[in-house]
């Protein structure tokens, strides 16, 4: 009974001419035992097995009750019409397999084997099949190998001698490529060492650029055409020791530097961004006066220029209240204006009275001195450096008299309203400010008889007290006291009044204005100048 089977078998390596490129991985395995499926429904099953690069055809009877004593193998090919050829090494064999490594060498052929089981000379069973060797890529058993870990690499020593003899010819070996498969942390990396020519000795493959303190496992195998049919060798692992301290330290150093650089870059960019948006380092456009960068100015502030000051003693004089009508006209003021009174010295005094303020607002009372015979007025000595201080008051000044053109010695008293040097009065709603150039006026202290209401001043030292008062006034007036020592506001009290210097056209000459001391209290112009300049 002819058993027809169509079984594809994997032939030995030597059966593979050029064109078969089983991939040899050094995950390197050698010798996948490949059992071809049994397509036959006959009495026996033919199997083609590749083991250690040997093509082994084996058979198994389905009916175990029939046990042949020996077997004989024949074969033919499909491409040619040839008769069955007997396999010499597989004639009258008792084993149930046959090594066809050196018989079936043409990969393009489809081989038709025939196995006949005999018992004596009687054929008990016959099996046939077909094997297309090409369809079954060559799974090979992996070769033996060893791995050695060094400080900077792992060396894989592959012993091809165990399989070199099984590699049929150069041609077959040329197309084997070895790959190394690493398993580190679950990562599989394939290496593909180039193997040229016959490999009959050990093959050493070096794996470098490894991560220290990592367990590496190596497996070798030959990769057939069909990627599913691969036989991998058992894994051999080694812990990669950090003998790579230099490189690891270098890598750590480089990593640290890079990390620092990145951190610095991030910080700088953040600061720059914040500064740009104004979140930090806000600009302070302070006024210059608040500019305290000039330390010298801060520490040694510039003192304001000294102002000429004069000590003024304020004498309070109680006078009658007189309503100021703000009419500087002589006629209109005739009612309100105090009539110029004639002093004993012949001066016509005009007085400007001001309201006495508890705030020690000094006011000046000017009297129009038009007394030509005024020469016995006692006029306190003026201060050397005193000058009249006229402070505005919250209430309007009351001008009691206007100074007329004075005559005589040191005609100092002038109409404050007409004096050129005098600045015009300024009047606000509540006050009138008189700016009188004391250089152009004559001040004197009023006598007691002229102004009994006026309490005498309290001169202090070489002070010259100037009293400007109107006897008709009951309003207390503040007398301006020129003091050489500085402006002083005298305490209200008796004050000495000194009349205006009388107009003495003949007694005194102009030339003596400057330094004539009238002796009766009048202050000559010069003295006044000394005072008020």
């Amino acid at each position, binding site marked *: 009974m*002819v058993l027809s*089977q*169509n079984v594809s078998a994997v032939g030995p390596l030597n059966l593979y001419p050029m064109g078969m490129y089983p991939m040899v991985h050094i995950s390197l395995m050698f010798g996948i035992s490949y059992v071809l499926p049994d397509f036959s429904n006959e009495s026996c099953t033919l199997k083609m097995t590749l083991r250690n690069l040997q093509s082994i055809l084996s058979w198994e009877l389905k009916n175990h009750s029939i046990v042949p004593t020996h077997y004989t193998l024949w074969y033919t090919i499909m491409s*040619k*019409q040839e008769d069955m050829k007997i396999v010499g090494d597989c004639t009258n064999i008792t084993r149930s397999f046959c090594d066809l490594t050196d018989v079936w060498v043409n990969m393009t052929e489809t081989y038709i084997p025939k196995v006949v089981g005999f018992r004596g000379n009687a054929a008990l069973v016959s099996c046939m099949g077909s094997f297309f060797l*090409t369809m079954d890529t060559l799974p090979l058993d992996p070769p033996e190998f060893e791995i050695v870990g060094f400080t900077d690499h792992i060396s894989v020593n592959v012993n091809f001698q165990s399989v070199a003899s099984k590699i049929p010819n150069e041609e077959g070996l040329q197309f084997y490529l070895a790959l190394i498969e690493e398993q580190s942390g679950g990562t599989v990396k394939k290496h593909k060492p180039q193997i040229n020519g016959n490999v009959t000795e050990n093959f050493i493959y070096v794996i470098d650029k490894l991560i220290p303190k990592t367990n590496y496992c190596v497996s070798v195998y030959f990769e057939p055409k069909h990627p599913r049919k691969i036989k991998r060798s058992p894994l051999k692992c080694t812990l990669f020791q950090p003998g790579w301290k230099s490189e690891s330290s270098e890598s750590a150093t480089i990593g640290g530097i890079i990390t620092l650089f990145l951190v610095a870059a991030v910080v700088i960019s953040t600061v720059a961004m914040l500064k740009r948006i104004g979140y930090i380092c806000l600009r302070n456009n302070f006024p210059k006066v608040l500019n305290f960068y000039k330390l010298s100015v801060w520490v040694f502030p510039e003192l304001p220029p000294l102002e000429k000051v004069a000590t003024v003693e304020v004498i309070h004089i109680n006078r009658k209240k007189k309503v100021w009508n703000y009419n500087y006209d002589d006629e209109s003021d005739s009612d309100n204006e105090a009539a110029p009174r004639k002093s004993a010295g012949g001066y016509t005094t005009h007085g400007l009275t001001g309201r006495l303020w508890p705030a020690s607002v000094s006011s000046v009372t000017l009297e129009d001195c038009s007394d030509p015979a005024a020469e016995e007025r006692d006029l306190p000595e003026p201060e050397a450096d005193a000058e009249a201080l006229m402070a505005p008051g919250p209430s309007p000044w009351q001008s009691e008299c206007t100074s007329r053109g004075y005559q005589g010695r040191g005609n100092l008293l002038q109409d404050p309203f007409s004096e050129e040097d005098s600045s015009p009065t300024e009047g606000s709603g509540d006050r009138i400010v008189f700016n009188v150039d004391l250089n152009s006026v004559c001040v004197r202290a009023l006598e007691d008889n002229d102004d009994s209401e006026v309490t005498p001043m309290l001169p202090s030292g070489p002070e010259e007290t100037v009293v400007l008062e109107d006897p008709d006034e009951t309003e207390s007036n503040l007398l301006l006291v020129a003091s050489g020592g500085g402006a002083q506001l005298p305490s209200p009290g008796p004050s000495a009044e000194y009349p205006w210097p009388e107009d003495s056209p003949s007694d005194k000459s102009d030339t003596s204005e400057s330094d004539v001391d009238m002796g009766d209290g009048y202050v000559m112009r010069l003295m006044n100048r000394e005072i008020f300049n």
Partner: protein
Amino acid sequence: MSAEPDVIRKCMWPVCLMGLFVTGILSLDCNLLNVHLRRVTWQNLSLLRRMSKSFPIECLKESKAFELPQEILSHTQPLTRDIKEAFYEMSRQAFHIFIQDTFKSNWEEKHLRQVQIGLDQQLQYLEQCLEEEEENEDMREVAEDERTQSGTPVPQLSNLELRRYFNRIDRFLKDKKYSHCAWEIVRVEIRRCFYFFHKFTALLRRK
């Protein structure tokens, strides 16, 4: 009113992707031709092997030697274009054989269809790449003429041999009246041819 623009907007993106995809498919990279041929040829081999569970031994007596022209590989320095042309010829002839609707065997039809599709794709791929080569190989034609004059076998001879080979197969089928055994024998033979050309892809890769 706004339904159409919405539809257009919705369909625009898939259409664009499809266009790019189609363009990518149509513009196959000829640099990967050897990879494609190797893969497709091996798939066809597997399909032919699985198409029939076993070769009927009774058909062995009807086997015939179709004389596959193995001398193609005997050329010491076959040109890439020659290999591609041979591949094209082989694919075209095999496709012609398997496209015939005269199967009287119990082959699994899905395998047969897959073989037909694989061969068709292989043909299209080869046509495109060969046209590109023709546009860029004017100088090579000059070189081929010179080589022809030097006595080197004309590359087109391999194609002629291939055509004869497949003609024998086709005639065998006709003679056997497309019997089951004839088809089985043809299947085994073409499988052998496919493997033969599978080795050609290694030559393409080397070049």
